[in-house]
């Protein structure tokens, strides 16, 4: 799917006919062919823009510059607490910007897209919005992690622990993506002249480097906390299970002893109290007293 936009009045606005910003969402075969053959995009770089496993990078081609960067993927309830990342490709020409991405997302809305003067700025702000998106997802991951901890403390089910593992895995993806974006932004700064960045744009890139570094450190902190606390949480689950087994064992013993007493007096041989008029009540009292003895021992041993 192709959407054409243009820069007008400092904003990116839709222009169905002559827009010089082309957004390709999951391009089909015909669109890919057009991009490779007419616009001379490298086929591998184009595929990288749609491949979630590709690393962020900057490549200079004869007629354009390709920037591949990472962004968080939209979370779906089917992801089961795995927060994934996707790639986005920006192909910056002299008078045209091609954006290639796998999901349809509103790219150009918000404060940061209010005063834009060049295609280079559009490209930088798209990358910047990805850093903000990572930051927000990290907050969500932290909240989900807290909620899962509460559930783990109160439950013995593996599903919460597995969800925590999923979060840990997500943070590894995020660290990888954010780190990779960091290297791309550094390269953008080093290639400022080649990319024809203005002084303001270079200052903006400096801000991006700081934001991205803070985002990386936050992800790293969450990841370390999650990893280091995982063993403790596994122990808590195991301990909860031990408590349950212990309680069940005590209940079993408390039921087993009266059964033993009654069984002994049920043997089809001559037994004491056989002819006693209150034999039933005496045996019942003996059976119940064993349960009381179990209770006394339980309290004495402080089980």
């Amino acid at each position, binding site marked *: 799917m192709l959407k054409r936009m243009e820069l007008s009045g400092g904003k990116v606005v839709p222009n169905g006919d002559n827009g010089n910003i082309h957004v390709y969402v999951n391009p089909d075969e015909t669109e890919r062919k057009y991009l490779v053959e007419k616009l001379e995009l490298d086929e591998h770089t184009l595929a990288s823009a749609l491949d979630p496993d590709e690393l962020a990078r900057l490549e200079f081609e004869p007629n354009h510059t390709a920037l591949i960067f990472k962004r*968080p993927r*939209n979370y779906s309830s089917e992801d089961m607490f795995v927060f994934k990342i996707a790639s986005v490709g920006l192909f910056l020409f002299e008078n045209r910007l091609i954006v290639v991405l796998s999901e349809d997302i509103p790219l150009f809305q918000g404060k940061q897209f209010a005063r834009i003067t060049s295609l280079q700025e559009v490209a930088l702000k798209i990358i910047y919005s990805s850093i903000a998106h990572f930051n927000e997802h990290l907050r969500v991951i932290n909240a989900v992690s807290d909620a899962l901890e509460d559930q783990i403390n109160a439950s013995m089910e593996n599903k919460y622990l597995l969800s925590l593992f999923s979060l840990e895995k997500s943070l590894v993806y995020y660290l990888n993506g954010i780190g990779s974006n960091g290297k791309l932004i550094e390269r953008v700064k080093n290639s400022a002249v080649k990319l024809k960045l203005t002084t303001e744009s270079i200052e903006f890139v400096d801000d991006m480097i700081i934001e991205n570094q803070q985002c990386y450190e936050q992800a790293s902190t969450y990841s370390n906390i999650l990893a280091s606390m995982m063993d403790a949480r596994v122990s808590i689950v195991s301990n909860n299970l031990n408590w349950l087994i212990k309680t069940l064992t005590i209940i079993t013993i408390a039921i087993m002893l009266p059964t033993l007493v009654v069984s002994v007096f049920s043997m089809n041989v001559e037994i004491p109290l056989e002819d006693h008029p209150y034999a039933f009540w005496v045996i019942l009292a003996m059976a119940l007293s064993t349960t009381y003895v179990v209770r006394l021992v339980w309290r004495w041993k402080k089980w």
Partner: protein
Amino acid sequence: MAMEEMVNNTATRMITVLNPAGLHARPSLAVAQTVRRSKSKVEVRAGQQTVDASDILQLLSMGVPCGAELEFEATGPDAEEVLDSLAGMFANRFGLFDGHVG
């Protein structure tokens, strides 16, 4: 008596999800945080599902798409206020039309 009536105040509100990606990660966090800050218990119904709106795990598991109608039911002293806050957040799409969703 008046105090008891205030504590047991119940309010319901139908709210439509306007975000293109539905009730996804960040809106779920915003809803859970808003409900936790309030003094009311809030439940949200989508079709046959009813979940505790203060629990981000349950909200994320709902998988509510764009355009879905959610029924919020709040019980507590600030039931109306919390529903007003939630309705406002949904109406302005959680301020998420800033270049990204999800």
